[in-house]
């Protein structure tokens, strides 16, 4: 009996629960990051977490997360998945630095890299749609390929960024603290959200994710949607990679590959279910904030980066459990 009402509360008020979670994080980390863990100190400004400099850190980490999450969120709503975003982005960051170092002008470089990213997405789509490979294993395969090519180009070294324009893009801020790259990323996420919620393309994504058969019988082509979204996700991974190299001012072999589960975790936290057909961009954004705040908070209170990995893994399990409760609740209604 108790479990059922718990499920219901979560599923019916998912966004509110998530926002509460976010606020709870803010409170907890603020407290924990003061010298004596007292509320008074929080208000007297001694909490490291709440300091503007730290909040800026959180915002600085946004561009990457936003790009990685947006593409994956769209795919997940349509009922698919992409695990190659990290490797894809890393390859793109390496390619960007490489081409620029070899003297290729900025615009052609960016175009080539975007095409590469999109192409990897396209291969994912082909694997899933033509060979009927399960998305997770297909994208793991392309992930391997992308990582391999990254290593090949890098040859164990890091490549420094030479192009001043890209460097500026990475460093410039608006209003004194908000990075331009974060602005670009958020604008793109907002556009994706608008497309998702307000256009007929977005509607098709929901319908295909909810019931591909019924969609096909109503004149919608699930395959086209699938190809489009995988390619788009690949493109966004490329954006993530470009942003990464711009901000780091260099590309290395690790790149953003560690971040590949961030997109999925953020999406699931934000209410996007693996089965497809539900959830929204706003939820994904909140999920993303929760995740970023979480990593940042852990760093502030002294968790080593490795402990953070563990914590993020646990967070993913937590997100999946929430998803489980939500599904369980909806199954009950169906019965």
């Amino acid at each position: 009996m108790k479990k059922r009402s718990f499920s219901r509360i979560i599923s019916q008020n998912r966004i509110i629960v998530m926002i509460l979670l976010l606020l709870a994080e803010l409170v907890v980390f603020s407290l924990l990051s003061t010298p004596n863990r007292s509320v008074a100190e929080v208000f007297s400004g001694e909490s490291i977490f709440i300091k503007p400099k730290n909040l800026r850190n959180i915002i600085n980490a946004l561009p990457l997360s936003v790009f990685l999450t947006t593409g994956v969120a769209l795919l997940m709503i349509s009922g698919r998945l992409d695990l190659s975003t990290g490797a894809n982005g890393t390859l793109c960051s390496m390619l960007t630095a490489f081409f620029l170092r070899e003297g290729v002008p900025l615009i052609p470089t960016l175009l080539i890299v975007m095409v590469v990213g999109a192409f990897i997405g396209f291969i994912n789509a082909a694997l899933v749609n033509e060979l009927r490979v399960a998305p997770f294993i297909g994208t793991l395969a392309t992930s391997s390929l992308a990582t391999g090519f990254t290593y090949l180009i890098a040859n164990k070294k890091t490549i420094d960024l030479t192009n001043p324009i890209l460097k500026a893009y990475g460093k410039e801020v608006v209003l004194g603290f908000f990075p331009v790259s974060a602005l670009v990323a958020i604008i793109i996420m907002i556009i994706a959200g608008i497309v998702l919620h307000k256009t007929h393309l977005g509607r098709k994504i929901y319908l295909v994710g909810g019931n591909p058969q019924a969609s096909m019988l109503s004149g919608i082509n699930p395959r086209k949607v699938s190809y489009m979204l995988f390619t788009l996700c690949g493109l966004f991974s490329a954006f993530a990679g470009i942003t990464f190299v711009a901000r780091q001012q260099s590309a290395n072999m690790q790149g953003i590959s560690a971040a590949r589960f961030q997109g999925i975790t953020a999406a699931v936290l934000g209410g996007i279910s693996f089965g497809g057909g539900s959830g929204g961009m706003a939820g994904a954004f909140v999920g993303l904030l929760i995740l970023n705040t979480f990593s940042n908070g852990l760093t502030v209170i002294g968790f080593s980066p490795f402990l953070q990995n563990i914590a993020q893994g646990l967070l993913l399990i937590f997100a999946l459990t929430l998803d489980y409760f939500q599904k369980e609740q909806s199954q009950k209604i169906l019965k």
Partner: protein
Amino acid sequence: MVGRRIRHILKSKEMILVLISIVIIIIFRLVNPNFLSVGSLSGIMQAMSLTGIIAVGIGTLLIGGSIDLSASSVCLFGGVLCALLIRANVPWGLAMVITLIAGFVIGVINAFLITKVKMMPFIATIAVSNVLSGINLAVTNAQNVPIPVESFWWGGKLVFGIFPVPFIIMTLLMIVYAFILNKTQFGRNVYLVGGNMTAARLAGVNPKKIHTILYINSSVLAAFAGIVLASRMQSAAPQSQSDSQLNALTAAILGGIAFTGGAGGMAGCFIGVMLFSFFNSGLNSLALDAYWSLIASGCLLIIALTVDYFNELSREKNLKVKKPASAAKKEGA
């Protein structure tokens, strides 16, 4: 009778793979006469062993219709744990046992998340993998852990002057598992569960129980692989460049273990591992960067999946109803 058996073996898919392996060897040998010389043979066999031991675990699980993506991390974890225990003056025999028990526990956790919490297998095992890799990095501070106990270094020794100990271990394991899969009720039940879960239930077999055992099996073997690796390298690494479980998976599928379950066997697995390792080593011997192997693995996996797709089509040519239940078990939507 014997004639029929021999004919059967010659016609089988495994034979085709053996032939392909031979072709690959010949091609690489032509390009670089040093390939597969006696000197490099032990190196290849070492690489095979790591992939092979993990492949036994993952392969058996695949036959049973499910998947485990935590094996790489469990392998590294096994090495790290064993190394740390030995450095803490625990006798290495005991350290090994404790590590295997830890693998057992991880397998139980995986099984719990998948059978009780009903999470999708791939995401549950990926999540566990993340947590484990974090633990690996945390307790070692991202540094290798050297193992200064000489008696533990059996992993690098050769038997009869040519065969590395790990290779013998892998071969023994495959023989034992081939036996279990072919000659015991349990082994055949694994095929049942992976091939048609409804038929399995009707026959009184409990899929959840079988899956639990298989997940535990996979994790224990992965931990064991980690021990073997640590023994050979005389130290344990908390992270590695190549994805050993993806390699094992590719090898298993190349060897004829169907991705959707219910088909394949240890013989094919062995040959798949062999094929995969030869291909990898061949690329290395061409003095290409070691990184080509990552690219090659990705390509090989795609090729393996393609072949599996066509095999699936021919396997089910006459079946009017496809198998939605077992395929959905692993699908990430």
